[in-house]
């Protein structure tokens, strides 16, 4: 006969532990309760899986409806794959991302530590290039060559700064 978990008294106990400290005692738990008790670590769950589980459980699904970054990534897609589309996503999806970031980083909301050698201006300029290159591609796709030429000039001027 199989033993039931001592905690939930529902699932079959598959984890059997003999504690020696502070006193000798035997415990029989199901995997879920054992994990909650910190007795075992579920080793087959990756960070991404945990993250996705969290996204599904905790985030307000309706709130993200229709939110899309200039790179084309929607909040829905982020929820599905756990990866952002481009650096700009942190800005465009920011309000939806912040609760997740806070939770993943013990409530922290601000970076402390190294900064790149390149200046902020360079970074901002480079970030603008992502958007412009996408616009250029769109303009070419739509055969809007006038627009493409002007975007190309903008890119050139940014690149030469």
């Amino acid at each position, binding site marked *: 006969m199989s033993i039931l978990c001592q905690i939930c008294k529902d699932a079959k106990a598959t984890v059997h*532990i*003999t*504690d*020696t400290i502070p006193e000798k005692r035997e415990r029989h738990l199901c995997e879920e309760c054992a994990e909650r008790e*910190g*007795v*075992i*670590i579920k*080793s*087959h*769950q*990756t*960070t*991404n899986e945990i*993250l996705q589980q969290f996204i599904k459980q905790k985030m307000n699904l309706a709130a993200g409806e229709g939110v899309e970054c200039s*790179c*084309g*990534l929607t909040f829905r897609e982020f929820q599905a*794959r*756990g*990866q*952002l*589309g*481009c*650096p700009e*996503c*942190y*800005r465009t999806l920011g309000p939806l*991302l912040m609760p*997740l*970031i806070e939770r*993943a*980083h*013990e*409530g*922290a*909301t*601000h*970076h*402390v*530590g*190294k*900064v*790149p*050698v*390149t200046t*902020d201006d*360079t*970074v901002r*300029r*480079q*970030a603008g*290039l*992502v958007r412009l*290159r996408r616009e250029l591609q769109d303009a070419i796709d739509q055969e809007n060559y006038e627009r493409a030429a002007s975007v190309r000039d903008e890119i050139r001027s940014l690149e030469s700064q």
Partner: protein
Amino acid sequence: MTIDELTQTTGEWLRGEGASSDVVLSSRIRLARNLADHPFLSSACESDRTEIYRHLLDQIGQAEPSAHDIIFDMNEIDPIDREILVERHLISRQHAGGEGARGVTVTPSETRALMINEEDHLRIQGLRSGLQLEDIWEDVSAVDDAISSRVAFAFDRQLGYLTACPTNVGTGIRVSVMLHLPGLKYANEIERMARAARDMRLAVRGLHGEGTDAVGDLYQISNQTTLGKSEATIIETFSHQIIPKIVDYERQARHTLAKRRTAKLDDKIWRAFGLLANARRMSGEETQTLLSPIRMGIHLGRFDRFGIDKLNELFLFSQPAHLQKLHGQAVDGEERAILRADFLRKRLGTA
């Protein structure tokens, strides 16, 4: 330098040197970086990926000429060679099995590896045997600076370095230390250690990282929080608080074993040796499991048939890809088990 030349040695992480190397096998620091003007990889098309790969390779070469000593393009080397790099801890399993333009540059000493187009555009990794986090950080940070003076990394004043996955945002740093904890394992104290580590927001995993069991009593401890704490703070906490404490517990547990359960411990060590030296079929997992008590036995002075160098050599070369490399051709699992047993007996002088 080629993979074949690389496999002439046991590499860096199994060198068996560095502080507390009786318990700490190796230390590693990884920084996640992305180019500011390109999409992250999950949204990048093939031409984006190729451009990122070429651009980074070129810039790394100019910023850090020594990094150009060995470049492995993942699409040009065969699957066994990719596995060799995984077994030597130079690339992740994900990188070996990925798709599209991607690669790694490795220093001849194998203390540094830069992965291009893994989950992020660039992952700068430093690796050393024993507990040497400060030295690794100095090296990794200098390379990061050299590259970032040439390319603009995606960075935000508030959020720090921007990464493909928000769980790495901020410093983008992952500090991890590989520990051998047979003493705590036999004393049934692993769960308590893991719980304490998790209370400190650290991840505890098996040898091969995420999603693996602790084969051979090897545990990897790493930080999970990357935002709100500086790199120096995280490293300091590892080097001077967390790891020394675990090392201390492990040493105590080993000495208690050696003192109170001498016969049982010796039996475990020498039985393991008996199996390794005589078996006719041996799986990779069993090999690692058996090498664990012997590793402890060497450090406790209870095993003298060979030293730590030899043990590390057996450890590394009994892994599937290394074994096949030595053999000169690919072989399947069953044949590999025979090959592994042959290899072990030959190296142990019992063939």
